[in-house]
């Protein structure tokens, strides 16, 4: 394999979308606690699970923020709290300058067109009883964007864009592989032409040889459509590839944030260092060298 790749993405700062500098999403001191209640007759709160414990970050239009965290770090809860799928305990979430934290479901409804999510499990996130044409078309129908023939046309276009063919329109999820289902999930997320897509572990459940396809697809779509991503994953290697900036999450807090390359090459926080050190290096000689210097368990 080549030793030196082409120009690294970090130096390509000049893409029209990214240069905007306009803040699309601003999260400030976001907190989500889950109370643990005990008591004989009446519930008294005895403890709290601090899933998200004061998280702040910004995402500029056109860029990709990578959020790295292991299980228990709170990253999934953070996603739900940002999208108002669960009510934050406190803190602020501003989308396009507008405060959305604590908004009622009704008030959030029109905003949902702009904020979409891609889920981790391609096997669980698609309703097995619906055909995929319907799954992808539902957002359009429910938000009153299109119906009938126009709806079908838009759905076909979406499927095509994610690399599926029109004949897939009438099939059911179980007829597709994991990678294809993830494409369907992406098509669904794109349906309403959102500004921001939150991808929660979009490739973790996929085979290795398919992961690259989906990562590249997301990349292409970002360039074509000017999308902004928050890419959440536990695999810092994948995140580094897609992200402009990386935020590392640990026990409900962000412990480090910065440009992707900087965070990976010159980590400042101890946890980030541990995380990076734990990523296996797919190079036997390097792996042996590293074992010798570090020593084994």
């Amino acid at each position, binding site marked *: 394999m080549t030793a030196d790749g082409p120009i690294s993405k970090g130096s390509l700062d000049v893409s029209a979308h990214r240069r905007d500098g306009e803040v699309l999403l601003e999260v400030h001191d976001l907190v989500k606690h889950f109370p643990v209640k005990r008591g004989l007759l009446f519930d008294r709160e005895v403890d709290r699970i601090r899933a998200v414990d004061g998280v702040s970050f910004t995402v500029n239009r056109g860029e990709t923020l990578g959020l790295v965290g292991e299980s228990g770090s709170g990253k999934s809860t953070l996603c739900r709290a940002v999208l108002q799928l669960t009510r934050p305990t406190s803190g602020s979430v501003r989308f396009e300058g507008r405060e959305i934290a604590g908004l009622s479901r009704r008030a959030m409804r029109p905003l949902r067109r702009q904020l979409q999510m891609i889920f981790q499990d391609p096997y669980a996130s698609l309703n097995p009883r619906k055909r995929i044409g319907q799954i992808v078309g539902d957002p359009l129908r429910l938000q009153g964007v299109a119906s009938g023939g126009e709806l079908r046309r838009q759905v076909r276009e979406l499927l095509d864009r994610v690399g599926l063919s029109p004949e897939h329109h009438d099939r059911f999820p179980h007829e597709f592989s994991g990678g294809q289902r993830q494409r369907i999930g992406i098509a669904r997320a794109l349906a309403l032409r959102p500004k921001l897509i939150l991808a929660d572990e979009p490739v973790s459940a996929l085979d290795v040889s*398919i992961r690259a396809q989906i990562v590249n697809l997301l990349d292409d779509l970002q360039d074509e459509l000017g999308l902004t991503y928050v890419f959440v994953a536990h695999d810092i290697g994948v995140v580094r590839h897609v992200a402009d900036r990386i935020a590392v999450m640990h026990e409900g807090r962000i412990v480090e944030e910065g440009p992707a390359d900087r965070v990976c090459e010159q980590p400042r926080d101890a946890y980030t260092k541990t995380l990076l050190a734990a990523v296996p290096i*797919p*190079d036997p000689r390097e792996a042996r060298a590293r074992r010798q210097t570090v020593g084994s368990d």
Partner: protein
Amino acid sequence: MSEALLSVRDLRVGFVTEGGLLQAVDGISFDLAAGEVLAIVGESGSGKSVTAQTMLGLTRSTNARIEGWASYRGTELLEADDAAIRDIRGERIAMVFQDPMTSFNPVYRIGAQIGEAIRAHRRDVSKDEARERAVELLDAVGIPGAERRVDSYPHELSGGMRQRAMIAMALALDPEVLIADEPTTALDVTVQAQILRLLERLNRERGLATILITHDLGVVAETADRVLVMYAGRVVEQGTLDEIFYDPQHPYTWGLLGSLTRLDRERPERLPQIEGTPPSLLDLPPGCSFRPRCPHEFEKCSELPGLEARLPEAPGRRDRCWLDPADKRERRQ
């Protein structure tokens, strides 16, 4: 040259399903020497797990069609009767599975389940003795506070500790061979590193021969001596660790290596990918099964390549690709 502990020749495992015969494994052969770590690499549908489970007779069922030959220290494994295979399970060859949460019975304590493994093979061991041994084992795999943990239920432990407990249970009777089926796939990366170090230590200190089954080449690079790459039920390439990583001979291996993200390198503009999807085992294309996804395919590929040594200087290297070795070196870049 150590002699083989475990030998497999031409193993074929098929399952009769409504859609026809699903050939999960189609002619795999390998040897495992004492103290060696053999990695079997492949994605879902490659047949790697079925191969591993067949070693312990776990795939036997009314709709399974198992052919070929496999033996452990002279004892035939595929046709062995139930009593014989039960003796080998746990005692000589032990297995660790992917998901420690579901692989433990949720209603019994960890210590009890480890004790059960011990007493199944050693009738004379009392419950107390078994419990003590369980504590020792939990300690040996690096679980802090083993005295307390031995009475925990599986759901009370973290993912990493559960997997360590699984490994402890596998080691209970001091087996010679450990088969680890995707032992770290369900774990976080920091925990994964710990488990791999543990497996490496066990291999080093106890001479525990290991078959490591994984889809992650990064994991392989850290632990394996030899590697088998499987695709759609067949071995497409085999060799030593360095040979596979530095001189891969099959386009699928190139694809796998290429799609890895490497932290120590500049990131490529675009992640190299393998086109298409793995084939359905019920409907394999004729000839080379990787052909539909291979950017280097040509006419000869309509004929299934045999798994053969194609490099005269390395007789242990075998692959299933018709391309000329010199050609391969060029195309690989």
